[in-house]
């Protein structure tokens, strides 16, 4: 396999770009192999340019509009710098507040978390809860009376009285 490289790569690059010097052109005219090589490469580059641009135009035609993305970014940029800084400082402050008291208060219940449900409950809910508790107490008391009436007493009571009939 013989490679015909009579023209230097610099000369060849100038020829491909259509900017050869007069000396390069005269060298080219004297060398049929070089002319053929140049013609082949020029043709290959021309085909590549045409085919790839055709492909790219087809693909670009189906690409979505950039307006929504540009608007989103514009809005993001439009947010004043000081407000971004304020948000960042607040986030850091909350983080520091949360973690700084954590070591010493681990064993203690968090007052805020305990009172939160009470705050959320309405007065009527509290009244309903109290009513429910009272009714449970009543029911338990009445159950004990029923046990007494049947003569069924706890074992401890029975032992104390020495009556196991």
């Amino acid at each position, binding site marked *: 396999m013989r490679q015909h*490289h009579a023209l230097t790569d610099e000369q060849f690059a100038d020829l491909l770009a259509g900017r050869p010097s007069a000396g390069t052109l005269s060298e080219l005219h004297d060398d049929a192999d070089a002319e*053929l090589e140049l013609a082949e490469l020029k043709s290959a580059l021309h085909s590549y340019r*045409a085919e*790839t641009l055709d492909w790219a135009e087809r693909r670009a035609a189906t690409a979505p509009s950039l307006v929504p993305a*540009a608007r989103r970014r514009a809005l993001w940029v439009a947010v004043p710098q000081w407000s971004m800084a304020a948000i960042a400082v607040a986030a850091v402050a909350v983080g520091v507040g949360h973690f700084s008291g954590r070591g010493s208060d681990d064993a203690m219940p968090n007052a805020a978390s305990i009172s939160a449900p009470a705050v959320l409950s309405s007065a009527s809910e509290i009244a309903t809860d109290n009513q429910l508790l009272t009714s449970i107490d009543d029911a338990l008391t009445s159950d004990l009376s029923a046990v007494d009436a049947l003569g069924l007493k706890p074992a401890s009571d029975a032992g104390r009285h020495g009556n196991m009939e």
Partner: protein
Amino acid sequence: MAYTLHASVLNFVQDKTLSELDDIDALARTYRPRLLRFVVASVRDEDLADTIVQDTLLKAYRNRAGFRGECSVNTWLTGIAVNLIRDHARTQKFKFWRKAHATAVDATDMANHLRSSGSSPEGSLLAREQALQVHAAMDELSPNQRSVFLMRFIEEMELAEIAQAMNMPVNTVKTHLHRAVKSVRTRVGGGRV
């Protein structure tokens, strides 16, 4: 007098450019295909390329007030895309993907498009085969060589524009370009007997 006229022309061009940048959909319509072609050829992954192109256009739109018209909009956008590609190339995920891709057959949508029937009138079998050879040859280039090669011969940008987009001296651009040409010559038609 001549200076006044020149300044007014410059202002007109700048105003026109700024109004072009104010409409993101118009910006996308004009520049998306070329950017997509450049980014896909650079990263060899269509989904990643879509994301990079979208980010490029959004970044340009967001920073449009900072565009002073010292280069063309195309050069400016390409520069943003180059930086985003570099950012992605630094991620571990991308490195892993590149390693996996190195041993796999290139089955990207664009490569398949090149293999299938071309849409251009001159899309003969030979032309498609040559286009595929160029695509494969670029795989062998370093990221900088590939970017410079693409900008010069596919996007047809000037050396100074490439230097601006790549944020490197023109001489460094030339070095990358000549190495890329050497490699591509060997693989495309360079093996003629």
